[in-house]
């Protein structure tokens, strides 16, 4: 990638939009995942008695919806990212490519 090429791409508003929006989405989603998981781990470490709470019927404790919820959350967050990337980031990327190639 030559310096002229770099300058040309840096001059494109689409490039800055792509970087900004992707960085924002990736940070927010990573943050949610880390918050959910480390929140869960801290609960396990510091408030283990919380997990004895029965939430459904007579035996199903809070830990089950919580655990399965984190697994589903991981899947849903990756889905949100892919959807946004397919619909939006790829459009910006293609505009950038067309502008410089």
């Amino acid at each position, binding site marked *: *990638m030559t310096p002229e090429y770099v300058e040309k791409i840096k001059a494109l508003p689409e490039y800055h939009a792509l970087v900004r929006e992707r960085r924002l989405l990736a940070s927010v989603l990573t943050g949610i*995942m880390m918050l959910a998981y*480390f929140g869960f*781990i801290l609960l396990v470490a*510091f408030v283990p008695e919380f*997990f004895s709470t029965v939430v459904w019927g007579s035996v*199903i404790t809070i830990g089950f919806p919580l655990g399965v919820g984190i697994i589903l959350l991981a899947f849903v967050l990756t889905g949100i990212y892919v959807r946004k990337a397919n619909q939006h980031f790829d459009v910006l990327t293609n505009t950038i*490519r067309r502008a410089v190639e």
Partner: protein
Amino acid sequence: MSRRLIGASLLLPGLACAEDAGNPVSASSILMFLLFVGATLYITYWAAKRTSTAKSFYTANGGITGFQNGLAIAGDYMSAASFLGITALVYTRGYDGLIYAIGFLVGWPVIMFLMSERLRNLGRYTFADVAAYRFQQTPIRVFSAVAGIAIVLLYLIAQMVGAGALIQTLFGISFEGALLIVGVLIIAYVTFGGMLATTWVQIIKAVMLLSGASFMAAGVMWLSGFSFETLFQSAIDKHPKGVGIMTVGGLVSDPVSAISLGIALMFGTAGLPHILMRFFTVPDAKEARKSVFYATGFIGYFYILTFIIGMGAIAFILGNPAYFNADGSMRGGDNMPAVHLAHALGGDLFLGFISAVAFATILAVVAGLTLAGAASISHDLYANVINRHATDRQEVRVSRYATIALGLLAILLGIVFQHQNIAFMVGLAFTIAASATFPVLLLSMSWSGMTTRGAVWGGSLGLLVAVAMVVMSPAVWVQVMGFEQAIVPYSNPALFSVTVAFGSIWLFSVTDRSERAQAERRAYVAQFIRSQTGIGAEGASH
């Protein structure tokens, strides 16, 4: 039969002898295993004709689709150890097993958001291509190869020892014989069929494992009238811990170890060389992120199944004398609840299927590890350090020799470590990945200020702290070396070693005032543009 063998099993605690496995080798398991081997060898033959260049050997020519790669990643990641190990953990400890399983999943979104697209846009064959992109090649390549091979070998030893014991139990072959079969088959897959054959072995195995586990979970739910309430209630009634299996037990004891384990699992996944290598098999960034989406779905689904299977094992095999020795120990060893449940649910035929699945699982994981290790040797060390003018042909030849050498080494290490306590090894592999390869790789792509000196010092210190603290921890210092008291009280050091790695990468980078460091910082912007847009990236050749 078991009474005769109590003496033998007492003499060899924890060892599975074929005769007291309680699962006589059935014709169906051998037949299904032979079918799998036949199919995979045919694929290898087909793939071999398409594997001649370095690009085809390492990346299957970048022609794998996102969906296929998602399955292959799942096949690479869901090991026999995690299938049998996590179901066994649920069986003995209940809810604690789910806590562990969640940890193995949460690294995937991180890979998606921070790594997958950029890796694909920047790399060619190995993660070191990305880590070394704008830096001095020799030091970064050597560091990446050392850390990568250490991770691969630790993982490989754990897989091989587990494989030997499992195959011995399921098929009645000797430990050494089992390792020989695994070693010879994976050498054949990887040497001749390269990444293309490895990928398809992983895909077939993932489909087999997911179907087998789905069938078992469905069987458990059917027997419980499709009610979790009924399933959990019958598990509570049978389990010695009673209602204790429904809540947090003592698996994660102190907060520091708990958080450290979380860090190691969450960020370690993003530093495993055999997983990272899979991102170079797809044509572009779009397929790379799709593969993580599918992989996360398959792996998450699988861990939910393992939990149901573990609870089902408590409810339906605990207390059934057919699966226990007279002294109360489980036939075939502590890792067998899933295998016995397969028999309880589907008889000999389904037991045969699950045994073949377990074997296939081992082969797929070991093949992926061996290929990643061979690529470190031939691409990072040989073609980028030792002989920079190597031709494509020479590089492929070296990678094939490296595969054979690693395959033989895996057999040898499996035999050497057969009677050692290796419980710490997979944890150590994840900790090294989180403390050495992950920080260097992440910052090389996202921090303009990093320099060669920062990367090599920071990554190496992370690696050293991780290894040193694990050696001094209870799992090695007390349980392996036999000392009275561990020097480091924590079961996992990732909280410290990952902090050391990031901190020292920063420190050794910002204090680097050399001419070269300035040039490396200036080179960031071009690398960043390529990582974001894919302009200039290695595309697929078709």
